[in-house]
């Protein structure tokens, strides 16, 4: 448990999740037990099929055997014919979803979330809601907006992707945060949209072949972003526009519900008619303190 006595923190290899459940104390204990029991199986289960999961997804190929692997593949398949994508693009969201699923089937909870390194799956009983804060850059906890998700909304997953995060990105977005029906869908979409926020060939964007950084990475020879110099407002606008066009089409097909794209302090939001509050919300009390 974390120092607050409320949240459960679990870590295994590269998987690092924070879980919080709300409801009766007994039910919370049941849910945490179920989460921990499932958690210890996950890394071995995924590694058993790692070679398959690192290969590009296909619309029609074989199905993996593990439940999480299937969630991953299902989340990336809609993109398989359009772009290069492997099931690994949805691993964090799929893990979060799986843990949440065992918790909600083991216990009756009013609310719960599973945060797997920033990719979040959550549960809302009827009438419940979650307040969500958005960070400008995944490596820094500074907030640029908040939104509230109610039980009546279809959204149950949030994911963020960007070149500064732990995973490699092909694009230059500092952060693309996506709200979608599931965490795995959000994870896959955030990856794809963050890749699309780009200025191909721009001299101030440093790119390195992924395999030079991590030989067994699923991106292989593809160039991943390692640095982004200062861009002009026009360039920032162009790059964001490319991401926005893609995000809008995904929104139109129901793959995502909303997205916030952030590049060097500029933010664009789509799919947020009711979410005008997504941007420029003053940082609430007690977030990182500015002296």
């Amino acid at each position, binding site marked *: 448990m974390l120092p*607050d006595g409320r949240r459960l923190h*679990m870590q295994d290899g590269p998987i690092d999740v924070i879980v919080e459940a709300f409801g009766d104390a007994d039910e919370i204990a049941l849910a945490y037990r179920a989460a921990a029991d499932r958690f210890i199986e996950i890394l071995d289960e995924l590694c058993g099929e790692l070679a398959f999961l690192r290969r590009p997804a296909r619309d029609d190929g074989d199905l993996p055997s593990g439940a999480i692997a299937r969630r991953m593949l299902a989340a990336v398949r809609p993109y398989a014919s359009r772009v290069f994508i492997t099931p690994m693009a949805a691993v964090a969201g799929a893990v979060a979803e799986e843990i949440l699923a065992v918790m909600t089937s083991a216990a009756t909870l009013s609310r719960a979330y599973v945060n797997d390194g920033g990719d979040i799956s959550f549960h809302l009983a009827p009438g419940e809601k979650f307040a969500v804060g958005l960070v400008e850059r995944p490596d820094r906890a500074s907030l640029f907006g908040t939104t509230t998700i109610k039980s009546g909304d279809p959204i149950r997953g949030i994911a963020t992707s960007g070149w500064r995060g732990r995973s490699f990105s092909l694009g230059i977005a500092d952060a693309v945060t996506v709200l979608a029906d599931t965490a795995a869908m959000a994870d896959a979409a955030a990856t794809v949209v963050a890749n699309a926020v780009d200025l191909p060939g721009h001299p101030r964007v440093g790119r390195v072949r992924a395999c030079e950084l991590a030989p067994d990475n699923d991106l292989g020879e593809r160039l991943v972003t390692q640095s982004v110099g200062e861009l002009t407002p026009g360039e920032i606008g162009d790059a964001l526009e490319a991401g926005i066009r893609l995000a809008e089409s995904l929104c139109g097909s129901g793959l995502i519900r909303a997205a916030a794209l952030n590049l060097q302090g500029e933010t664009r939001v789509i799919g947020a008619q009711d979410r005008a509050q997504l941007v420029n919300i003053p940082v609430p009390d007690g977030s990182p*303190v500015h*002296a």
Partner: protein
Amino acid sequence: MPVADDAIRCDACPVLCYIKPGRTGACDRYANADGQLVRLDPHVVLERAVSRGDTLVPFLEKSREWDGALVSGEETFVTAIGAGTTYPDYKPAPFIISSEVAGVDMVTVVTEGIFSYCGVKLKIDTDRHLGAECSTVRAQGESVGHVTTNEYGSQMLSLGGVRHLTGGSRHEGTATCDALLNLCNRQAVELKIDDGATVIVQADKAPIVDGVQEERMRVGCGSATIGMFAKQWFGKVDEVVVVDDHITGVLSEHQAGKLLGVPESGIKLKGRRSTPGRYFRVAEPGTSWGGTNIDDPLSILGPFDREVATRGLRLLMVSTTGEHHAYFELDEELHPVEKELPAALRESVERIRENCEPALCTVLFMGGAGGSLRAGVTENPVKLTHSVRDALTRVTCGGAPVYVWPGGGITIMADVSRMPENAFGYVPTPALVAPIEFTLKLSDYATLGGYMDHVRPLSSITSINRDEESRRRLAARPDNPWPLASNKSKK
């Protein structure tokens, strides 16, 4: 197992990453260091804890082995380093930790403050001329501060401050933040002073001025050196000149020499005489003899007075650090001729050297705890200021003592060398992230409007985690006052 291009396979978990030299695996916790698989040092894990908002809490423990217990009451102090904020809650996580110390309930409010108003005061022990007062100091070509006063044996620089951090161009802010962060984390930084020297500075290390590492501080100014060593020279040499950029001393004219009865030597110094035996500006400032620009000590002397000087007169010229010295005797024409330093004088030159302390750079972090930081401690921030002022609340930075400036607000200075390594971070604002802890009696905390419902016992600091090492336990420095020790300095 070694594979092509020096990558190694990590077997710490079933992912079995191939890790290239200098890179980490997918977990960010294991790395390839020169072909060896290593656990990253706690700092990196800690930094990750900060940036990812984990609630991993480093501990300072008194200098003894950790006994395996999660907490040990008054022996444990929770620092703000790595306390961060708790994403996804994104709420302030000022840890508010209660513990019992000598029967008194104490509370420590722990937060990583983001300081836009901050900088460092840098003391560089050198007599060499680094640059004129008020000159701009640059890092990465950007203006990051200025040269301020020349102190006894040291040059002070003032770096950072809000006008460099956020008042100038973005590049200026970034370069300033970078320089401050590195200095505070005790890394080396190269600074270039306009129309002056390039100096490499690092906390607790000797400065490197224009490529030359400074060894020792001067023992005193030239005049003081005459006073200190006059007796040791008396009878062994007829005249001594201590070359110093500030005040050059001359034994026979100096009060110390007069008292001993040293006869006039007929020596003529260039420069401006201040009082007898004390000369200003015998040369230009520089990085050679005694902080002047001269390589030939005779260049600061005029011809000897033929009425007074005698053939064979023995003259010692020495710098204020003993680093430069030369010995002369006057020939028939009363010209000084360099000779080997006699053994009897060698001793006094050695003594000067011996009395010169090692030259160091020292870095004091200076910052002001602003309104919002204080609001994280209490609902009525001014009460915290008053409590600090009344010495009811002790302020520490990463467990290290701080000096609280008199006057309004909570403006503090702390010696970064007394803080744990890598205690500072940054945010892209740009601003520095520094640990700050407020320790006070629980009853006083209630009085000043503290968040009593957020107070949690020390014993609650625990988490399920395969890698217990990610919590960084450090031995407290024995030379720092223990932050939880009873406060004897009440006004």
